[in-house]
């Protein structure tokens, strides 16, 4: 019984790690650019398919991951410079535009990849299970957990210890003032948008190897990411980590213990948190 619980706990943790990778990109874009990028799920799926295509043809998982991040970052660049720049400052239009882009991307992927389910081929050394504490656990899921922690550390250092990070934080606080002090905040915005998109691509590549890729996977990951960011508070990295842990664990608990209420177990507490902290656990007023 106890080993079963540890197994489920680890499942929740690894799912949380994946959610964090995807949601950290979402919260960066939401926090700095004030854009609720509803195409983020489609960017995730695009990253997954890119990783699948590249990893299958080259035989290298690493190439697949890098190709997914690069392709999705470029898609983000096109989305921002080609479309979003025309609706700056209009939040509703941005939401509708990104929703539309998400639907179009999803349809295009359906045309190219069809409705079949794909799995990004994981490298051999990550296949199989690791035996510890009297149980077997898939190595790949442990890799995702480690990657989530690594991404958290890298993003934390970027945001808190570098000049670019200070610029991003200043831009989150007050974009008008940082621009009036000589900083081309648009360029910082674009870099952040591409970074956020690349994280969605990374999430797709990594998630595509254990959650599988299928046409509606984008909507599912988007809903989870929204829950993570709403719980954690927009623009907050720690918030995204805590939100991802909560959503990941609640999802596992819900599926195991209350399968009929699996969604309620996540979104019930989210509504309760919002009632008492409308800006999320780590959210601040602008």
């Amino acid at each position, binding site marked *: 019984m106890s080993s079963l619980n540890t197994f489920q706990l680890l499942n929740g943790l690894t799912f949380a790690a994946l959610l964090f990778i995807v949601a950290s990109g979402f919260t960066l874009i939401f926090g700095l650019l004030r854009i609720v990028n509803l195409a983020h799920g489609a960017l995730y799926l695009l990253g997954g398919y890119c990783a699948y295509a590249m990893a299958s043809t080259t035989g290298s998982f690493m190439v697949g991951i890098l190709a997914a991040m690069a392709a999705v970052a470029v898609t983000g660049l096109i989305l921002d410079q080609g479309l979003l720049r025309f609706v700056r400052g209009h939040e509703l239009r941005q939401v509708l535009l990104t929703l539309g882009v998400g639907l179009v991307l999803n349809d295009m992927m359906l045309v190219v990849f069809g409705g079949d389910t794909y799995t990004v081929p994981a490298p051999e050394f990550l296949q199989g299970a690791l035996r510890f504490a009297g149980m077997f656990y898939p190595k790949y899921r442990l890799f995702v957990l480690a990657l989530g922690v690594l991404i958290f550390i890298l993003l934390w250092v970027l945001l808190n210890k570098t*000049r670019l990070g*200070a*610029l991003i*934080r*200043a831009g*989150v*606080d*007050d974009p*008008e*003032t*940082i*621009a*009036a*002090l*000589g*900083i*081309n*905040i648009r360029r910082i915005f674009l870099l952040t948008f591409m970074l956020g998109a690349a994280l969605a691509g990374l999430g797709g590549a990594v998630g595509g190897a254990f959650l599988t890729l299928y046409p509606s996977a984008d909507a599912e990951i988007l809903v989870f990411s929204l829950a993570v960011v709403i719980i954690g508070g927009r623009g907050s990295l720690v918030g995204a980590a805590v939100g991802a842990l909560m959503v990941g664990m609640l999802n596992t608990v819900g599926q195991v213990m209350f399968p009929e209420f699996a969604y309620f177990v996540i979104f019930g507490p989210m509504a309760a948190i919002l009632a008492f902290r409308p800006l999320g656990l780590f959210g*601040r007023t602008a």
Partner: protein
Amino acid sequence: MLEVRDIHSYYGEAHVLHGASLSVAKGEVLALLGRNGMGKTTLIRSIMGVSPPNVRAGAITFKGEAILGLPPHLIAQRGMGYVPQGRRLFPSLTVTEHLTVLKPASATHGWTVAKAFEFFPRLAERRYHRGNQLSGGERQMLAVARALMIDPDLILMDEPSEGLAPVMVQHLEGIIGQLKAAGLSILLVEQNLYSALAVADRVTILETGRVVHEATAAEIGDQPETLTRFLGVH
């Protein structure tokens, strides 16, 4: 240094500045006076290129070059420092980060982080605090120090004495005097007439979006009628 000619600024359809003009000479402190709602902050924001307001007519030249229509970061990079109304520090940045995050426009006056801390020792003591953990006076010091980091030739200061204790206002007057002595030009928006007269060379008075009076600081002290009429001072 700075020439503003006949600018018309709008907030949406609201016509706020009706052909306002002013000029700041090199090394001069010009105080822009006027009651609340007369367009002082609108004029400062128009010069800085911050939108809103929208400037629909007129000309602004800075160091001989037209800057009207440029985005704010390019105006700042030409050497225009900005101390916005209400300080507007960054709550998530430490005192040091407020200074290191900006890069210098030029090196003519050599403002570095070390020099700023020398100039404002109180900030050096508080270097690891965040912007929202400082007292009112310290916040204003930091807002000024931050503006100095781009090594400006001209600083726009929008009501720096607002909300400060009298002793801090005096301290601020001292700082403005030192900056002037260091060769900076300053355009100072003030509600506090006496604080403005203590540091300004000249004054320009705005009334409903128009310049209605210009004088030297020495002259205006002897014009009680003007002060009563435009500033409500008795």
